[in-house]
C-alpha cells in the first residue's frame, strides 16, 4: 500500500464523514431541542436532491439548484413541522416514529408520482470538475474536496450560530429546559419551526451535494438516515460536537474497513474468499464500533451535559 492510496482513502473517509455530519447535525439538533425522533429526515435529503436536479435541469445552473435545494428542503421542513410534527412534541417516541415513518411513505410516493421511477441526473458544475494533485503522487476529485470544505464551513457556522448568537442561546436554552424558556416569553413555537427548517435545509444540502455524485432517486435518503442515526448515537444524542466527531469516525471507519479488511483477510484465505468475507465484515464494522462505544460510554462520546 502506498502513501498516496492511504491519503486518498483517508480523504474519502473524511468526505463521507462530512456528508453524514450534514445529515446528523439536523437530526441531533431536532432531537436535542424538541426531543423528537424524526425518521423523515432522509426524505428531506431526497427533497433537496430532487429540487437541485430539477432546477439545475431547468436553468442549466448547479448553483441555482443548490440554492433551490436549501430553500425547498427548508420549506418542506417548515410545512411538515407546522402541519404534523407540532402535534407530536407531547407524545411519546413511538407515536413520533409512527408519524414520521408515515411521512417517509408520503414523501416517497409523492416524489414518485411527480418524477416517476427513473433516477434523475445531476452533473457536477464545470468549476468543480477535474482532479487536483496532492503530495505523494496522489490525486483527488475537486468536487469531493469541495464537499469537505462545505462541511467544514457548516460545522464552523453551526458552532458560531449556537455558541455566539441570540438564536443559538435560545436553542441551547430550549435544549436545557423547554418549559422554562416558554415561560420566559420566548416564542417557542417559532423557534421550533426555525430549528426544524434549519435541520431540514442541512439535510437538503447534503442530498443535493451527494446527488451530483450518485443518482437522484426515490428512497435515496433511507440508507443515509440509518448511518446518521448511528452517528448521533455514537456522538451522544443532542450534541452537535458529538455529531461532528461521530460522523468523521463512522466515515473513516467505514471507508478504511471496506478497503483494509479484505486485504487483511487475504493474508489468511484466498483473495476471492477474502473479498467476499471482508466485504461482508466491512459492512458490519460501524455497528461493531457503535456497540463497543456504547458499552464503554452508554450515552455516546459527547453526551449533552443536562440530559
Amino acid at each position: 500500500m502506498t502513501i498516496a492510496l492511504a491519503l486518498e482513502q483517508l480523504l474519502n473517509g473524511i468526505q463521507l464523514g462530512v456528508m453524514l455530519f450534514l445529515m446528523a447535525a439536523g437530526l441531533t439538533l431536532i432531537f436535542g431541542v424538541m426531543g423528537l425522533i424524526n425518521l423523515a429526515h432522509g426524505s428531506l435529503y431526497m427533497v433537496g436532491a430532487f429540487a437541485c436536479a430539477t432546477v439545475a435541469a431547468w436553468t442549466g445552473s448547479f448553483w441555482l439548484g443548490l440554492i433551490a435545494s436549501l430553500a425547498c428542503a427548508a420549506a418542506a421542513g417548515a410545512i411538515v413541522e407546522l402541519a404534523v410534527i407540532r402535534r407530536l412534541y407531547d407524545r411519546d417516541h413511538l407515536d413520533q416514529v409512527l408519524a414520521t415513518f408515515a411521512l417517509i411513505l408520503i414523501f416517497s410516493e409523492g416524489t414518485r408520482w411527480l418524477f416517476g421511477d427513473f433516477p434523475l441526473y445531476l452533473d457536477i458544475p464545470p468549476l468543480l470538475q477535474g482532479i487536483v494533485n496532492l503530495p505523494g503522487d496522489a490525486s483527488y476529485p475537486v468536487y469531493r474536496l469541495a464537499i469537505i470544505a462545505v462541511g467544514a464551513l457548516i460545522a464552523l457556522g453551526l458552532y458560531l450560530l449556537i455558541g455566539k448568537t441570540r438564536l443559538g442561546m435560545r436553542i441551547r436554552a430550549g435544549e436545557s429546559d423547554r418549559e422554562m424558556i416558554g415561560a420566559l416569553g420566548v416564542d417557542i413555537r417559532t423557534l421550533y419551526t426555525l430549528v426544524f427548517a434549519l435541520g431540514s435545509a442541512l439535510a437538503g444540502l447534503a442530498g443535493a451535494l451527494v446527488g451530483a455524485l450518485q443518482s437522484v432517486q426515490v428512497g435515496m435518503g433511507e440508507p443515509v438516515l440509518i448511518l446518521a442515526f448511528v452517528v448521533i448515537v455514537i456522538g451522544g444524542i443532542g450534541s452537535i460536537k458529538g455529531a461532528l466527531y461521530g460522523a468523521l469516525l463512522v466515515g473513516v471507519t467505514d471507508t478504511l474497513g471496506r478497503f483494509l479488511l479484505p486485504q487483511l483477510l487475504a493474508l489468511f484465505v484466498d483473495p476471492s474468499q477474502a473479498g467476499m468475507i471482508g466485504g461482508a465484515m466491512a459492512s458490519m464494522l460501524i455497528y461493531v464500533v457503535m456497540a463497543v462505544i456504547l458499552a464503554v460510554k452508554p450515552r455516546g462520546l459527547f453526551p449533552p451535559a443536562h440530559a
Partner: protein
Amino acid sequence: MKTMLAAATMALSLGASGLVMAEPLKIGMITTLSGGGAGLGVDTRDGFMLAIKQSGNKDITVVTEDDAQKPELAVQIADKMIQSDNVDVLTGIVWSNLLMAVVPGAVAQGKFYVSTNAAPAALAGQGCNKLYFNAAYQNDNLHEAMGEYANKTNKKMFILAPNYPAGKDSLTGFKRYYKGELAGEVYTKVGQTDYAAEIAQMRASGADGIFVFLPGGMGIAFMKQFAQSGVKIPVMGPGFSFSQDVLPAIGDAALGAKASGQWAPDFDTEVSKKFTADFQKEYNRLPSIYAVQAYDAAQLIVSAAGKASVKDADAFRNELLKADIQSPRGNFKFNTNQHPIQDIYLTEVVKKDGVLTNKTVEKIFTDHGDAYAKDCKI
C-alpha cells in the same frame, strides 16, 4: 331444421373448444418498482406486458406487485399470490437473492416460475427444477463472455461486483474464461452508492482494465464517480452495467464502454426491429435488455398457454421447453436445465441521434449454454 341448428351449434362449440383451450391463466409478477432498482423492474414489467398485449389472449391475466428489492417482501407477495390470488405462473423477479427466497417455495407448491432475469447458479445445476424456467440466461453467461473478450485485450484486470449471489456468479463466470492476471477482486455491499474507496484501489492497482458488474443505481453511481475521479483505465462489464435503463443517467461517461449482451437495440433482424419500434411506440423510450428478456418470458408463457392447460403441468412444461417463440435475440432454445442456449455479443456504448445506446460489435459466443447444465438431472 331444428336438428340442423342443433348440429351446427354442436359443431361450432366443438370447433371452438378444439381451437383454443379457453382456460384462464393467471400470472403473478413480482418485480422491483421502487428504489434504486426500479428502472430494471419497470422495464421488466413493460416488456412483459407488451408481449401479453400483442398476444391478444384475453384468458391471460397478470397481477403485478412491487418487491422494493427486499427478499422478505418478495416472499410475502409470492405467498399471497399463490394462496389467495391463485396464480398459476410466477415471474418478474430481477434480483438473484430475491429469486432464491421465492422460487424453492413456489415450485414446491406446484407453481411454474419463468424467470425474466435472475438466474443464480444454485438453480441451474443440482438445484434445477422441472417447474423453473429461465428466459434470460444463466447468471454467469454475460460475464463469461467478457472474460473471453478480456483475454484478447487485457493482461491485468481489476474486477468488482456486489456481494450477493449474482455478484459471486458474475466474477466466477468472468474468471472461468479470463486467463490473465487479476489486479484486484472486490465485492461491494448491495445498494452501495459511494465507490470512492474502490476507485482509489483501482487507481493504485496498476490494472490495464476494469470489469464491473453493478446493475441499476449502483452502476450509475459508480460510472459517474469513476469519470470524475480522473482514472483513465478502460471499463468493461456485462450488458447490465450499461443497459438502456441506466445509460441516460450515467451520461457521456459511458461512451466507448465495452459490454456483453444477448441483444442490443441495433439488432438487424425483422423481429428485433419490430420489437424495438413497438416498445418505443408504447412507452416512448428505448427498451433495455431486461425488457427483451421479459418480453420473451411472456411470449413463452403465451405460446405454452395456447397449446396446453397449465393445470396439466407435464404438458405445459413440454410446450414451454419447445421455446416456440420469435425472440428479438434471434436464436433461442432451452438447455437440459431449462436455461437458454443463445448467442452472446460484444457491444459498445455509442451516441446515436443524441441518445446513448449500445451498438453491436461482434459475436463472442455462438449457441452458448452454461457450466451447470451437466449437473442438472431432470
